[in-house]
């Protein structure tokens, strides 16, 4: 069976559980998705299903390669395609419609998205360094401090935590509980936060 779908993050809210406790939830709009390609081990070397996200507006700017790929299977143009690996060949066919019913309430989900961009950030915000004192003649303030030693090793080690771009990166959150599935609206509520801003494209998989 298909193990995942493409969706959009709608936002966060809260619901009450049976014990009356408040549960923070993220609302995800899943799909509607369409199967755009079925890959089999005989033909492609592995089993997978490629799905596309159906959106309200049909995209105008697609590359010729994308238009050609979708045109081969007679599917309306779509911007977002994702592939989901399968262990064995699936019974899915090109053009199959997929919605929130793919998921069940007992599933644990893995959600992948692009985190909100924070720009070029220093070492305090990006890596949580302590920094120096702000007053009393300090020359240290928010600087990263020493980044290496003198003669040995006389270089900076790769991967040293330094200032740089923060956010706008692919982030995955695993094992999110499904709180509710609203089938008629194609929404699922998962417990906790999900990377990205509202309206951001996320990939939802069963973990």
């Amino acid at each position: 069976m298909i193990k995942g779908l493409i969706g959009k993050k709608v936002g966060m809210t809260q619901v009450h559980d049976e014990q009356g406790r408040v549960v923070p939830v993220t609302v995800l709009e899943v799909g509607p998705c369409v199967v755009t390609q079925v890959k089999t081990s005989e033909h492609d070397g592995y089993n997978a299903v490629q799905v596309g996200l159906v959106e309200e507006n049909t995209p105008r700017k697609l590359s010729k390669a994308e238009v050609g790929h979708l045109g081969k299977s007679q599917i309306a143009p779509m911007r977002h395609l994702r592939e989901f690996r399968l262990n064995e060949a699936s019974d899915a066919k090109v053009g199959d419609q997929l919605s929130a019913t793919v998921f069940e309430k007992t599933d644990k989900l893995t959600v992948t998205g692009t985190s909100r961009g924070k720009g070029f950030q220093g070492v305090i915000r990006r890596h949580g360094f302590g920094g120096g004192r702000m007053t009393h003649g300090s020359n240290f303030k928010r600087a990263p401090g020493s980044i290496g030693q003198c003669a040995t090793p006389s270089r900076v080690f790769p991967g040293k935590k330094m200032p740089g771009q923060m956010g706008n990166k692919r982030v995955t959150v695993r094992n999110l509980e499904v709180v509710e599935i609203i089938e008629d609206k194609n929404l699922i509520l998962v417990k906790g936060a999900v990377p990205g801003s509202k309206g951001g494209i996320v990939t939802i998989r069963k973990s």
Partner: protein
Amino acid sequence: MQNLYELEKSLVDIKKPEFRPGDTVRVHLKIIEGAKERIQVFQGVVIAINLKMNRSTFVVRKISAGGFGVERILPLYSPSIDHVEIVRRGRVRRAKLYYLRDRIGKSARIREKMNV
């Protein structure tokens, strides 16, 4: 993308609370202890109501037996609230009565609202 506002509206039965800031209320809370459920009452003055669809809350302040001010922020549409009983209607001139925190004794009184 779908509207979060529409979903929040549909999550609970949204209706305006009967009580208002300044009112003295008895909040009957359902407390689950192991397998048993009992009702606990929290009585105090409503000092604030925050209306935010299904996330609405209200704040009840009381002076405990030890003389300490105790405030509880309660979700308005929580299933663990059995019911809210209005003991006394208060006449106040603002929506948020945070000034009561700085007052004790006589100056922390609220006039009763007549002919409601």
